[in-house]
């Protein structure tokens, strides 16, 4: 029974190993920002790394094309592409893995319950949805100049105008989209 409980990371389960309070996690991320600003001269962020990775992959096949693209030039031609933030992104996977092992909360998930309730159990359907969603996420992030970490947290805490505009826009769009997809009834299937 205990192991069953600790495997579930859902709401209401805040066992000290499996799931931490959002206030503790939030404070931790805030303090992590002090460290990156103060000691590393960096702000937390992730989405630029996707540009660098995409550019590096493309450069294997068509170096010329990448060299001539002004956007890739900003990030991987004029300076090293494999840098601080790319290592941060690799670290995200490792850190989440360590945490999942530590709390015994790792969860193999192919189709989330809520998605299954709305769209059925097709793995292909979910993967296609995730791919399209991921594409929109990154396209939007690059147009806006950052994502939830770069704009939302790092930009938010610096009170940057750009970041607060982004935050308001993405949050409202997310609310509307989620209600359009799942409706009010979806709230009981999260």
């Amino acid at each position, binding site marked *: 029974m205990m192991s069953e409980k600790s495997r579930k990371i859902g709401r209401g389960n805040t066992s000290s190993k499996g799931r931490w309070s959002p206030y503790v996690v939030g404070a931790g991320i805030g303090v992590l920002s002090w460290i990156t600003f103060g000691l590393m001269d960096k702000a937390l962020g992730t989405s630029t790394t996707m540009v660098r990775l995409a550019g590096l992959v493309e450069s294997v096949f068509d170096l010329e094309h990448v060299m001539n693209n002004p956007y890739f030039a900003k990030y991987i031609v004029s300076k090293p*592409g494999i840098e601080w933030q790319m*290592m941060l992104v690799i670290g995200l996977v490792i850190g989440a893995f360590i945490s999942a092992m530590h709390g015994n909360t790792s969860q193999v998930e192919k189709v989330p319950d809520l998605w299954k309730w709305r769209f059925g159990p097709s793995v292909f359907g979910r993967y296609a949805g995730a*791919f399209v969603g991921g*594409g929109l996420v990154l396209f939007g992030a690059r147009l806006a100049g950052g994502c939830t970490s770069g704009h939302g947290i790092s930009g938010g805490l610096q009170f940057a105008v750009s970041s607060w505009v982004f935050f308001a826009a993405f949050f409202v769009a997310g609310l509307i989209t989620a209600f359009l997809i799942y409706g009010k009834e979806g709230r009981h299937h999260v």
Partner: protein
Amino acid sequence: MFELFNFAPPVKLVMGLCTGIVFGFLLQKGGLTRFRVIVGQFLWADHTVLRTMLTAVAVGSAGVWALHQMWDVPLHIKSAHLLANAVGGVIFGIGMAVLGYCPGTGVAALGDGSRHAVPGVLGMLAGAAVYAEVYPWMKKTILSIGSYGKITIPEITSLSVWWFVAGMAVMSATVCILLRGRDVMKTS
């Protein structure tokens, strides 16, 4: 073939890796590597995302501005391109509600066992590649509208930043208190 695979100095790489490990650990412990937690926020059923982000911004702002004012630690403010920030934000929000992750949580979810985060991250790479192709056009059009440089809210209101740091703490605390016990529990 691998001409562009250039590395930053090792110290920077190690610092980035350590930061990412701590960040990923915190995201997983906070339940933010879960689709249901992210989409649950947009459905106003699970307020973990708001609680975490508001706390992070409140705590982060106090320390970062103290570091900036006392030891001249540089800020990293992103330029305002108001139309692009808003339109990009809308596209991002739509995508985040569909995917159930943002870039950071989606990548961290890979380490947490989420299989559908794999096509999600591949989609992100595709989205980045597409944006790189249309960037010259964006630069001429959307990015040039409402372009004000690296401005902050304290600057445009001419108020001390400490009003905003204090206001952020009060606002975060208030929102978190109002949201107490407002999570919708699963019926089945």
